[in-house]
């Protein structure tokens, strides 16, 4: 589902944010990507949804070679990949419903189908009562769950979550993790970037450890 071959990525000429990354994530896997702040987790995630192109090497997502993808084709890649952004990226002047609906509007769904599907998803993340609220009136944990609903609503093949438990309390973290696991059980391949050791320890999944842009450990502890 996700394949990287000898990938290098540098923002500036001499400093590589990622070096010789080779990895493979199979369909239906649940993977933690970890490492200290600045290790290159977010950079790696951005390569996976086409926000960045690697300086060198190949990135292949569900059979699409992202490295060679012309800009006009990037939308079709992104429809396969649901991303939960570190900063949520919710639109403050739209309701929760409208924020989540965006993913489906882009696909050309009818309003009726969108409303049904969004309601279903919001119920799943426990926010159906906030459907007409704007994001700024929600708590951090609630905003995070709206962001997740938006990423999950079209049942993407791949789900990427960057620090999804960033500033959340324990209860919210558990909710977030439960939602991601549920999506994984339903068939999505999930990659979670986090430096939260406790989150990783709380479930036995494959862990890829980055340090200064290198993969220093790739351990499947789900055994």
């Amino acid at each position, binding site marked *: 589902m996700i394949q990287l071959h000898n990938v290098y990525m540098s923002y500036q000429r001499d400093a590589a944010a990622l070096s010789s990354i080779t990895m493979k994530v199979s369909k239906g896997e649940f993977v933690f990507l970890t490492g200290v702040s600045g290790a290159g987790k977010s950079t790696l995630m951005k390569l996976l949804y086409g926000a960045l192109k690697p300086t060198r090497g190949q990135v292949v997502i569900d059979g699409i070679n992202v490295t060679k993808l012309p800009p006009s084709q990037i939308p079709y890649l*992104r429809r396969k990949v649901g991303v939960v952004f570190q900063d949520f990226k919710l639109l403050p002047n739209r309701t929760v419903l409208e924020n989540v609906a965006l993913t489906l509007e882009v696909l050309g769904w009818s309003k009726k189908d969108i409303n049904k599907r969004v309601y279903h998803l919001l119920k799943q993340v426990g926010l159906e009562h906030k459907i007409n609220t704007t994001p700024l009136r929600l708590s951090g944990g609630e905003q995070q769950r709206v962001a997740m609903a938006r990423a999950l609503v079209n049942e993407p093949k791949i789900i990427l979550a960057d620090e999804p438990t960033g500033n959340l309390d324990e209860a919210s973290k558990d909710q977030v993790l439960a939602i991601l696991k549920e999506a994984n059980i339903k068939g999505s391949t999930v990659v979670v970037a986090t430096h939260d050791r406790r989150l990783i320890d709380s479930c036995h999944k494959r862990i890829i450890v980055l340090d200064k842009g290198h993969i220093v450990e790739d351990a499947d502890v789900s055994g």
Partner: protein
Amino acid sequence: MSRDKVAKRPKLAREGAGGRFRYFLERALLNIRQNLLVNLITVGTISLAFLILSLFLLLYVNLERVTENWSDRVQVAAYFDRELSPGEIASLSGKIRAIEGTAGVTYISRQEALKRFSGRLKGQESLLNGVTPDILPSSLEIRLKRDSRDSDSITTYVSRLKKIPEITEVQYGEEWVRRFTDFLNLVRFIGALVGGFLVLAVVFIVANTIKLTIFSRKDELELMGLVGATRWFIKAPFLIEGILQGVTGVAVSILVLSGVYMAFLHNADILISFNPMLSGLLFLPIEYLAALLAGGAALGFLGSLASLKRFISL
């Protein structure tokens, strides 16, 4: 697995160009409502800019009209060496009418010429005692079409007129025509200069206002791209919004202009108007209003298009 649910895709209700356009239009209207303040400021700025431009146009159009009316005085008189029979005059008039630029031909008989002459000597008609009509020549008086009243056109016209054998002499106020032409050209030149400057200013102001409104929504543009929207899917509602802003702005400016016109201008005298028929300004002709609206729409569209380019990387 649940992937199958996606395989049974819900129907795409917005198929075909019409459905798609309706979606984009709805989206644009919703965007306007959700960004009402920014839109009001944009529309306000556009209408202010266009108000200045249309006010200038109104004054210019009237100035040009008044100036052109002066040219009604331009007349060409053709004389012949002998008296012509009515048949000859008719055929001669026909030949003259065939010349490009002729608006009308009137025969002035000797009696008619004397009557006019004595009319000009009001109060001193006694000077003409004993004068018979045959001291004045008969002539053909030719009026020219508006676009043939400048120096160059008249010169060409007169040279054609002189090729007609029966005509021996042609008179027109050569000096006056030249000065009139120079003045009209000056009015037009200054009009084009000021107008061009105003148009540039309007384009600059409107484009920058739109750029700011789009900049204020760059997060939205970015996010649309991240959830898989194609370039045109992102752009279309913004372009429609730009067109609506442009058209609304111009419409408001026209409304304000007509208000100002009703209140102050429609019966205001123009100082330079020598013709009493022409006191009071005319409102902008409908073609100008249509052109202003079209200009607003085009500016809104192009301004949005140019600004969007900077924020969409797809």
